[in-house]
Every structure is written in C-alpha cells, then in structure tokens.
C-alpha cells in the first residue's frame, strides 16, 4: 500500500493518492495536501466551502454529490471550481476532502 508523508505524518493512500483510512482526515491534512496539488498560497474560504460541503454530503449519503449540485449549493460555478482545484472536483477537491475515490460508471 503506498503511503504519503505530509508534515511529518504518514498516511495510507491508493495509487492515485486518495486517503485510505477516511477517519485520519484533518484540516491540516487538507492544508498540507493542497501544496502538493499545486494550490498556491494555501486554502481560501472558498476552498473550505467546497471541502466542508463535500464532507457533509459524503457523511450523509456515503457518496460524493453530483458536480452540478455541488456548484449550485455552494454558489461556486464549475469554471471557478477548476480554478480552485486544478485537478478537478473528483481528483482534486474530493481528494483533499478525504473522500474515497469515486467508483462505478461515473
């Protein structure tokens, strides 16, 4: 199992860097991971709005929301979403939010 070291802590991740033990997530994890993901200057309020929404939705439904729903409910459009998370909503935002890698025919 690959691991990822962030700020001196070691996390188990899959080949794409998705956190394997979801309960190990912390805001510090997201902050430290952001640098690796090429997000300059740390996480802003808008980043956190997305991350918190994703985590709440995932806790409630066990799956990441539709991208369109994410955009609508947070008021952040998809263009802006890609500016905030250059790897995109699934590979960028979900990864930082500590969600499992999306599965199925999506």
């Amino acid at each position: 199992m690959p691991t990822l070291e962030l700020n001196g802590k070691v996390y188990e991740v899959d080949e794409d860097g998705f956190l394997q033990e979801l309960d190990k997530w912390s805001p510090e994890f997201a902050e430290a991971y952001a640098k690796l993901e090429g997000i300059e200057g740390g996480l802003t309020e808008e980043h956190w709005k997305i991350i918190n929404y994703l985590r709440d939705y995932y806790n409630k439904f066990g799956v990441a929301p539709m991208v369109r729903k994410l955009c609508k409910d947070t008021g952040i459009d998809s263009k802006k979403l890609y500016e905030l998370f250059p790897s995109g909503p699934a590979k960028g935002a979900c990864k930082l939010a500590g969600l499992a890698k999306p599965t199925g025919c999506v």
Partner: protein
Amino acid sequence: MKKPLKPSDISKKSDCLCRIEEGELAPLPPPYEDFNQNIPTPLKAEKTGNIETSLDNTVAIGIPRPASKEEEEALIKQFLSGLQKLFEKENNWTFLQPLLLSLEHCARCQTCSEACPVFEMSGRQEIYRPIFRSEVLRRIYKKYIKPGGKLTAKFTGDIDLNWEAIARLAELSYRCTLCRRCASVCPIGVDNGLIAREIRKLFSQEMGIAPKELHDMGTIQHLKTGSSTGMTAAAAKDSVEFIQEEMKEITGYEVEIPWDVEGADILLIHNAGEILSWPENVGAFAIIFQAAGLSWTLSSETAGYDVVNYGIWYDDVQLSRVAVRHADIARRLKVKKIVIGECGHAHKALTVIADRLLTGDLNIPRESAMVTLENIVMSGKLKFDPQKNDFPVTLHDPCNVVRSMGIVEPQRRILKKLAPRFREMTPHGVDNYCCGGGSGFAIMSRYNFAEWRNLVSSRKKFLQILKAFENESPETPKYVCAPCSNCKGTIRDIIHYYRAEERSRLYYGGLVELTVNALAGMKKPIINFGDKPSWE
C-alpha cells in the same frame, strides 16, 4: 525491428514482454500530430512495489508477486484447478460450448487480427493479437489438462507454466475490450473475445483475482449499497430530486419523477452513473416519458436504481446475483416490463445472458430504451421540430447493444427523423468499432491504465469520430451521440485527453437528450455546447 513474440514467450522471465515504443501507435491526423509520440507513462518501481508489471508495463489488475517458491506453486495449482473447471459442464454451464468450439476450431487465418482495433492501433503488437492469448490458453489446456498432453506438447505447441505465464495471462485478458468484432468476422465463428472473458472468469472465480473497480468496488459494492457508485437509495432520491429542479431550470419543463409505483407498466432502470455524471440523461427520459403519457416508475430498492452488471465482464456468479436481483425487484413491483436505460453492457446482461437464469415469474419482459424511444417518436403523439437539432451529429454504436444484440435500426430511425445533419461513421452498425472503454475499461484507471485506454484501445474510435466530421469547420460544434454510459465516459475522456473540445469542438451525449432537444414546445434546449445553448 522487434523480434516477433511467440505464445511460449509468455513464460520467459523478463521485466517487460512487450513495450510500446514512441511513434509505434497508429498516426493521428492534424491537428493532433503532437500526440503521435505519446505512449503510456512508464511505471515507476517505487510506485508499483511488488505488483506484476511484466506483460507490457501497464497494469489493469495489479497482482502481487508470490513471496516464495511454495506460494508460486500453490498459485499454479489453483490456476490449473480453475482451468479444469472451465471445461466441466457442472462448473461452466454458461459458456462451455462456445469456449470448446472456439478453442478447437481456430484455423489461425488472422482475419480476426485485422479486425481488432487494439492490435491495429497499437502498431500491431503481437501480444494484442486476438489469437495470441487464446493460443496461450489453448496450449496450457492441451498440455496440462488433456490426458497425455505433456507427451504431445512438443508437436502441438509447447508452453511452460510458471508464475510469469499466469500473471501475464491474467493481465492480458484485460487488454481486450470484449467488443467481439473479431468473432463477427471469423469465417467459422471462433469467439476470441469470449476466450478472453473466460480467462477473466477463471481468475476471479477460482483465484479471487479481478480489477478492484469491477469486483470490490463494483459488483460487491453494488449488491451491498445498491450501486457500484456507492450511492444509497437516499442518495439516489436526493440526486433525482435535484435533477427535477434542474430540468425545470434548464429546459423550463416541469417534471415529476415517480418512485416505487406498484403496477406501473414500465420499471425504468438507469445506469446510476447517469444520475451522478449525466443528470440530463435521467431528466430527458423523465420528460419524454411524461410527455408521452407513459405509466412508469423508478425503484429505490437496493440495486433497483442501478442497472449495471459488471459480472458480465469477469464472473458468472456475480453476474447471476445481480441479474436475479434486478428481475426480482421488477417481479415484486408487478410491472409489465423493465426498460433498460442507455447502458450497453446492462442490455446484454439483463436481456440476453440472463435469459437462461430467469425462470417462471422472474422472466419479466425486458426492453431496450432504444425501442421505447422509437415507439414514442414514431407514435405521432408528440410533435417534434428537427430544425432544433441543426448541428452535425454522428452515432456511436455500443458493441453490446448493436453487434451483440442486433439492435441497429431504432436509434437510426430516430436520428433520421430528428437530426437533419446526421451522418454515419465508417464502418458502423454491427461493424462498428468499440469506444475503447468496453468490458470495464471505461471505469478502470489504476496506475497508467487510463492512459493506455486513451492512447491504444480508444484510438480507433477517435479516428472514426474525426473522420465523420472531417468536412465540418473546426469552429462548428459537433455532437457524438453515444447511447451507453460507459461509451460516453470513454468518449468524454478521449475528448479531454486529446483536447478535442478546443481543437475540434467535439461534444457528446446520449440519444434521449437529442430527442428531447427537438421536442416541440420546449422553452429552452437541453443540449448545450459549453456555455452556448444548442438553439435559442
């Protein structure tokens, strides 16, 4: 010049049996020549660890190497036990006959190789020939399973059985999209696609070896949570409610999506990936069904809202479990028929393959959405304005729906009526080429597999799409109609990888969206090209 590989080379110890070199892949036309030197990114040892990568430096399954000689021997024994079972009536009542016929009667005429897009596009790599993996299996079977095989092996084609051979064969069974174009051109009906699929089955059912996306996160998750996306019934309902609101906002049409209506005429089951990734497809079905006044429902039972059946790609037991679950939900809901949404493999799994499983009152009629839509469009009940679809359209034929099932014309009759600028790809219909994402490839993306798909197995489809639109200006938005979730996901990835939205303004979507887009009386279009509406 590479030395041609022989089937017996599969047992030879080496880091990599076949490496695709830069410039070997079939060339792309302008403005895509800058991709011609691309190859799948070589895997780094520190990332793959003890995962077997020695077939072609690409990984679909990710099988750990045995830690000791004893472990290797145990695995070989297990493999042979599974192989034996493939040839027993009790253990392989599903596909024994076509497997035997295909193994016994191949004349090595190579007609299949010329028909295989993976072999052709890869720069004709020997290992991707449809008969290469079949010949490996045939030799192992003849030598190790047939009585006296070890004595005759010298004359019938020798092969050594070791870990390398087994692991490479497992990986090689995931370098074929099971599109079965090879089978359709074979003069004597040998089905090398089926052989690849039976190899996958051996590994899954006997050895527990299968891609994580298909098994752990696929059929297992599907049966447990209700969907291979992990979506529970609550999540599905929440998402569908959102789709209702979206439809009103996007198209101005107010739609009510019914759940769990006992005694409805139709149980519509979508691929749940549509709900999450292509919500307009789900919305468009609701609009057209409502407009046509059909009696229909969705089901919120576990797996009742996800028609996928990944078992068809690798495992008969999982295939059966999922198919019976789907039929049983329909039986208890007392519907007259199941309509299968735009999902190709589900078409074949639930209608054709499951037909031998579903006995008595489980054998509920199943219908393709292509047919349901055609009946609606041709009924005369609804008015359409084809001029709303005034943009170039081509049609992708999902292999399972078209070549494997023969549903060829309904979708074409709809397009001929509703899409004035429709043109066929060459070739098309039952001679179509796979999108490159068949048999699970669309959703497999560990290590460098997605890159292999975009570069090798999807390459032919990309060329076909470009060819279909070659007389159109690069600035004109173009619609690839792909009535299958996995084909859509694959075409989305092709467009993204080759930056074809910027360069050729390629867009894609399903058949029902085009239908609703031409429905008269709609306030706004359901199809948009980027942020531009398709009509105003």
